[in-house]
C-alpha cells in the first residue's frame, strides 16, 4: 500500500510550506490580534458607546461580534489567495501540475491534493486566530476548538470554486478584479463588521449567497454559543455544498486543462 495519490500531490506544496509555516502561523496570530485591537477594541469602544448598538448586535459587545468572525475571514483570504496566483503558477508558470500528471497521478488526485493543501494551510491560520481569541474574555470558549474545522470548511467552500476558475485561465489578468469584486465586497458586506440585517433589503439575499456569510455565522454561533441546531445544520450544508460542488467542477476543469 502506497501513500494515497492525493497526499503525494499535497506533499509538493507542503514541502514548500514546511519552510514558511512558522511565518504563516506568526502572521495568523499577529494579523487578527492587530484587527482585534484596532477594530474590535478601538472601533468597538465607539460602537458600544452608542445607545442602541447592543440590540443590533444581538446583545453582545462589538469585540465579541467582530472577533468571532475573524476566523472565517482569515480562512477565506488565506485559501482564496492560494487559489489565485500559486495555482496559476502550478498550471502555467512552473507547470508543476502538468509534470505531476505525466506520472501515475490523475487530474482528480491533483484536485484532492490541492484541497488537502488548502485545508492544512487554513488549519494553521485558523488555529492561530483561535489562539489570539483566547486572549479576550468575550471570546474565550471551547467553541473555538469546534470553530477551527468550520473555518477550514469555509476556506474550501470559497477556494475550490475559485480554483476551478483559475484552472481555466491562461493569465492572471482577472485576479485583481476578482479580489476587488468578490473577495473585498464579501469581506465588507458579509456580516463581518455589522449584521447583514443592516443592509438594504434587496442586498440581504445577495449576502446569503456568499459562502463567507455562512462561515461567519456558523463560527460566530459556535464561539458565542448562540446558534440553534437547525440553523447550524443549514449553514454547514451550504458550506459543504460549495466545497463539494467546487471539487466536482475542479475535477472537470483540471482534466480539460491538463489533458487537453
Amino acid at each position: 500500500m502506497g501513500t494515497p495519490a492525493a497526499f503525494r500531490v499535497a506533499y509538493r506544496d507542503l514541502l514548500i510550506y514546511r519552510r514558511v509555516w512558522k511565518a504563516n502561523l506568526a502572521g495568523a496570530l499577529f494579523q487578527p490580534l492587530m484587527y482585534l485591537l484596532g477594530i474590535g477594541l478601538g472601533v468597538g469602544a465607539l460602537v458600544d458607546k452608542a445607545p442602541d448598538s447592543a440590540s443590533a448586535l444581538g446583545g453582545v459587545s462589538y469585540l465579541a461580534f467582530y472577533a468571532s468572525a475573524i476566523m472565517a475571514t482569515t480562512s477565506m483570504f488565506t485559501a482564496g489567495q492560494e487559489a489565485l496566483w500559486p495555482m496559476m503558477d502550478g498550471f502555467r508558470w512552473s507547470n508543476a501540475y502538468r509534470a505531476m500528471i505525466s506520472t501515475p497521478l490523475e487530474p482528480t488526485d491533483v484536485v484532492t491534493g490541492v484541497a488537502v493543501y488548502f485545508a492544512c494551510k487554513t488549519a494553521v491560520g485558523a488555529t492561530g486566530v483561535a489562539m489570539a481569541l483566547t486572549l479576550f474574555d468575550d471570546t474565550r470558549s471551547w467553541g473555538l476548538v469546534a470553530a477551527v474545522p468550520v473555518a477550514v470548511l469555509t476556506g474550501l467552500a470559497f477556494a475550490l470554486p475559485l480554483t476551478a476558475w483559475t484552472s481555466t485561465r491562461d493569465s492572471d489578468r482577472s485576479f485583481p478584479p476578482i479580489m476587488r469584486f468578490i473577495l473585498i465586497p464579501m469581506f465588507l458586506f458579509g456580516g463581518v463588521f455589522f449584521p447583514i440585517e443592516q443592509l438594504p433589503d434587496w442586498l440581504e439575499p445577495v449576502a446569503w449567497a456568499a459562502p463567507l456569510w455562512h462561515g461567519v455565522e456558523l463560527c460566530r454561533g459556535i464561539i458565542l454559543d448562540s446558534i440553534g441546531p437547525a440553523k447550524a445544520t443549514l449553514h454547514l450544508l451550504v458550506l459543504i455544498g460549495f466545497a463539494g460542488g467546487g471539487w466536482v467542477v475542479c475535477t472537470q476543469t483540471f482534466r480539460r486543462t491538463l489533458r487537453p
Partner: protein
Amino acid sequence: MTLTATTRSSMVTRIIPDVLFDVRRPQRLIERSVMVYRRSPMVIFSGFFEPLFYLLSMRVGLSSLIGDVEVGGRLVPYAEFVAPGLMASAAMNGAVFDSTMNVFHKWKHARLYDSLLATPLSAGDVAVGEIGFAVLRGVLYSGAFLVTMLALAMVQSPWMILSLPACALIGSAFAAMGMACTTFMRSWADFEYVPAVTLPLFLFSATFYPVSSYGDWSWVLQLSPLYHGVALVRAANLGEFSIGVLGHLAVLVSVTVIGVAVTARRIETLLLK
C-alpha cells in the same frame, strides 16, 4: 571638444543625482508600465470600485451603529470622519503593492532591471521611474476616491481638492520605502512580513478613531508616516490648516527622499556587480 564636455557633465552628475537633470529618462519606465497595462485595463479600472465599496460599507455598517463622532468640537457622522483616513490608507496600500510584489517580480523573475541598466538609464532613473508609476496610479485611485466621496456627499470643504497632492505624497513615500525594502527581500516568503508593517499602520494611524481616543499614547502616532498622511487629508477635508501641516509634509518628503536614495544605491550594488 565634445569628449571633454561630456566628461565634465558626468563629473557633475556624480555629485548631484543626475535624475534631477533629466526627468525624461525615468519617464521612459512609466511609458513601459502604461504599455503593459494598456492591454489589461480591467486591472486598473476595477480599482475604481474599491473606494465605493469601502465607503458604502462604512455608511450602512459602522456609521449606523456608531452614529456621530466629535472631531475638533463638531459632530460628524462616523462615515464622514473615517473617509479621509480610508483615502490616505488606500494611497498607502496601492503604493506598497505596486512597489513590493510587482517590483520583486520584475527584479528577480523577469530580470527587467538588468536589461534597463545596459541602456543609458541609470539605477536612479529606474528607482524614480518605478516609484513614479506607483504614484501616478495611486493618484488615479485617489481621484476615484474623491469623486466617490463627492457623489456620496461626504466632502466637507472645497479644499478637499488638496487631498490629491497629499495622496500623491503618501504614495511616493510608501512606494519609495516599499521599493527600498523590496531590494532586501530574498524570496516570496519574505513578503509575509509586509502586512506586519502596513497593517498596524493602517489600523493605528488615527484612521478609524480620533487622536483623542489614543489618550496618553497619542505621541506614538507621530512615528507612523501614514498618520501624517491621514492628518493632511483630514485637514484638506475640513479646510482647516495649521502650522502642523508643514511638519506632516516634511515627514513624508523625507521618507520619499530616503527611500529613493536607498533604492538607487541597492540597485547599483546588487545588479551592477
